[in-house]
């Protein structure tokens, strides 16, 4: 019996050890996501998600994306992303069909509302994907935008 409980304890201890090292991993991933590194240069949405560690992002209706359904001019697409998720620290904006899909990353400081309005270029019709980071978790939402005139070409 004693031997059994001893084994049990070691297993629990090693499991927590793994959890801790996983915890250590996430800040380093956050560092890797800083600008100048790859996520901003990657060519596909999946790659971006992998690099920022958001592959397991949950769809959430607490994220609102305000974007035009039809954008006449792809060079200027106004997009507002608002997150009602508590503890939102970062918002990523991804234009799925752009040569480099990750367009912007916003990091919010103390007191800032997790809502951001800016304008993006979109080469083709596609989804605007928002990735929101709150605590250690990622949430996502998307909105389709139809572009009648691309904004990435000459």
């Amino acid at each position, binding site marked *: 019996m004693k031997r059994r409980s001893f084994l049990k304890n070691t297993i629990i201890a090693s499991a927590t050890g793994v959890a801790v090292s996983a915890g250590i991993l996430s800040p380093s991933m956050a560092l890797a996501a800083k600008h100048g590194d790859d996520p901003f240069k990657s060519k596909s949405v999946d790659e971006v998600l992998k690099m920022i560690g958001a592959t397991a992002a949950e769809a959430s209706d607490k994220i609102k994306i305000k974007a035009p359904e039809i954008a006449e001019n792809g060079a200027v697409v*106004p997009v507002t992303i608002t997150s009602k998720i508590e503890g939102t620290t970062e918002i990523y904006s991804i234009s799925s069909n752009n040569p480099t899909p990750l367009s912007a990353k916003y990091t919010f400081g103390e007191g800032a509302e997790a809502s951001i309005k800016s304008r993006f270029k979109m080469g083709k019709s596609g989804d605007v994907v928002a990735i929101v980071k709150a605590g250690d978790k990622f949430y996502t939402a998307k909105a389709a935008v139809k572009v009648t005139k691309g904004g990435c070409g000459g």
Partner: protein
Amino acid sequence: MAKSTIKLRTKVKGDKVQVKALITHPMHTGLVKNKKTGEKIPAQYITEVLVEANGKPVLTANWTGSVSKNPFLSFNYAGKEGDAIKLSWKDNTGKSDSIEKTVGKK
């Protein structure tokens, strides 16, 4: 001195302050060709925008060439009249600019 590339507006809305900024910048992706010469226009875009209120960062934006020309930015933060707002940007060619303003004053 050259005219500032940044237009910054602040507005007090209850216990919040709305910050709006317009930056004059070409935001070249590096993918567009010059129609006359057929040569690619080299990439030049803003990589980082930092907004500070009373010395504390309230918003950091990391941008790419996918952000529109003459980028516009708007957000709110919990603040009050008299806060010192500073906005600064850097681009990939090493250029930068910054502006300082007091909330509530034109």
